[in-house]
């Protein structure tokens, strides 16, 4: 039983990162309809930025995290402007190919400039606490708590503040939003900045637990897409719930079944579910 609860704990930790990353992706993919395939790679870049800020410039963990969020937010704005905006009125497949170009550039740049080897961010909270036979490191607890705070903040931002409501207005009806004077370009930039910023935050939070490597973003980006599609395009609760479910599935499946195939389950599930519902589990018809 201890093993089970231990895996549940790990699953929730893993799910927290998935939820944050998927949340950012659902904003961009569901609201702006941009298939940002480079989302996972921007997440990876976030971890690297924070790593270099900490090791080269002596930043503390939290200042590095905040700086990384800001820097990635800015990079997100640039990516949206350069890679996606020129293709906004073109077929979907074009922006998708453009995204593949962006992810190639991001991943290879990191490999070329900083090397392919894995790196580790020094753990700011190395302690361990033992609750009812489950080993919890402080850092893992921090990831779970920070994810909850981040999700709550984002929810308040979107539902309660004017910029957030503007984003939602564009999501509901682009032309309508334009008619009442919403600057859609500005909303695109803002949404992208939030999306990549939150991805960077997630990357910095888990970086002390896992190694950071140039390839870590590719798989995570795909998982985020799986979550977003299963949770319903543009649905924020769907992305959060989907993130936690996938995290739990992987931890428990990896613990009891074969760990080598744990990624196969997630991707296989996607193909299976899409075969029954082509627009995703909670997707709207005809989207």
């Amino acid at each position: 039983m201890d093993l089970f609860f231990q895996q549940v704990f790990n699953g929730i930790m893993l799910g927290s990162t998935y939820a944050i990353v998927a949340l950012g992706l659902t904003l961009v993919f569901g609201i702006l309809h941009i298939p940002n395939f480079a989302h996972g790679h921007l997440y990876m870049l976030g971890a690297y930025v924070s790593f270099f800020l900490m090791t080269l410039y002596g930043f503390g963990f939290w200042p590095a995290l905040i700086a990384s969020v800001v820097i990635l937010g800015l990079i997100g704005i640039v990516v949206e402007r350069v890679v996606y905006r020129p293709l906004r009125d073109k077929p979907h497949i074009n922006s998708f190919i453009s995204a593949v170009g962006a992810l190639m550039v991001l991943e290879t740049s990191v490999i070329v400039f900083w090397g392919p080897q894995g790196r580790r961010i020094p753990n700011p909270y190395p302690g361990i606490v033992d609750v009812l036979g489950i080993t919890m490191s402080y850092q893992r607890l921090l990831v779970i708590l920070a994810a909850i705070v981040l999700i709550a903040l984002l929810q308040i931002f979107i539902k309660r503040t004017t910029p957030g409501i503007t984003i939602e207005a564009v999501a509901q009806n682009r032309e309508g939003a334009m008619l009442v004077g919403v600057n859609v370009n500005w909303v695109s930039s803002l949404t992208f900045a939030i999306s990549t910023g939150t991805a960077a935050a997630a990357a910095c939070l888990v970086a002390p637990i896992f190694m950071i490597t140039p390839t870590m973003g590719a798989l995570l980006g795909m998982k985020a897409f799986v979550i977003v599609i299963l949770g319903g395009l543009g649905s924020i609760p769907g992305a959060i719930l989907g993130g936690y479910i996938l995290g739990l599935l992987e931890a428990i499946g990896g613990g009891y079944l074969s760990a080598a195939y744990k990624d196969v389950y997630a991707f296989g599930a996607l193909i299976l579910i899409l075969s029954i519902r082509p627009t995703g589990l909670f997707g709207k018809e005809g989207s």
Partner: protein
Amino acid sequence: MAVKFLREKWIYVLLLVLALALPLLVTNRYHFQIIIMGCLFSIATLSMNLILGYTGQASLAHAGFFGLGAYGLALMTKSGISFWLALPFSGLFAALIGFLIGLPTLRTRGSYFAISTMCFGVIVSLVAGNWIEVTGGFNGIVGIPVPSPIPLPFLGEISFQTQAAQYYLVLAFLLLTLLIMNRLVHSLLGLSFMAIRNNEVLAEAVGVPTFVGKVLSFVVANFFAGMAGGIYASLMGNISPGTASLDLTFNWLVFLLLGGVATLSGPIVGAFAIPVLMEYLQFLAEYRMIIFGVLLIVVIIYFPRGLMGAFTTLQERVQAVYGRRKEAVKGAARS
């Protein structure tokens, strides 16, 4: 008749003669290997072009099917089945899996299809890396025999030990693929593929069976991808999960987009020009994928029809100008 044919198609005849005489012109083994790989990747890119370029469905599982064909052929020939029997079976194997995967995934549209095929591609390479008893895990399969010799009555046999013989084998398959693709895209079926690409709802409305068309295009594309994989496995002698990697799909995507999507010459031009260019830019080897990425973005934004598309546009413009001048001269003569 023959003269007329020569006058109209001299460029193709010249290219064919050049291709046939190539072993006499290229003596460096390394360069020759690049050309053989160019032919192989041309087949793969041509087949990707069918589903992505002509039918408008971005399949990112293409290297996955290439890998399925490669593993299929490797396992069959290693257990003693002749290459010539194993090769069509490896293509059929990829086509069958493509059919089974296409049924659910082709019901989705646009990015959803791209993501679900990408997931399948990753599954193939994950399974290839972890199913050690069959695929040899990350070490892959080594010692795959070269194609078995073809016996010829009274003349001995054609063996495939030399590079030149291997080149002719790949060239023959490339020409075969090109021929079939040419017939296909100029047929009614090919037109229905393009109708699906241009407007699926409209195509459905005028009676094109869109789902059947998409599945068919996907299956045919994967058949050729699987065959290319089979030839690759036999000529290389060893394969690994990297044979089915997403990187390979992305490479072909670059070849296809830069060469010219939805043209027959584009994929071949791309599959040859880019690797050759990369050879000349050896000092940039590290930055290769960065350059590719930037090129991909620039091309899709500014030249969505690629190199061959740009060439055709230029040709049309020149003809338009030339034609107008002719008209003007005629007009002047009349007045």
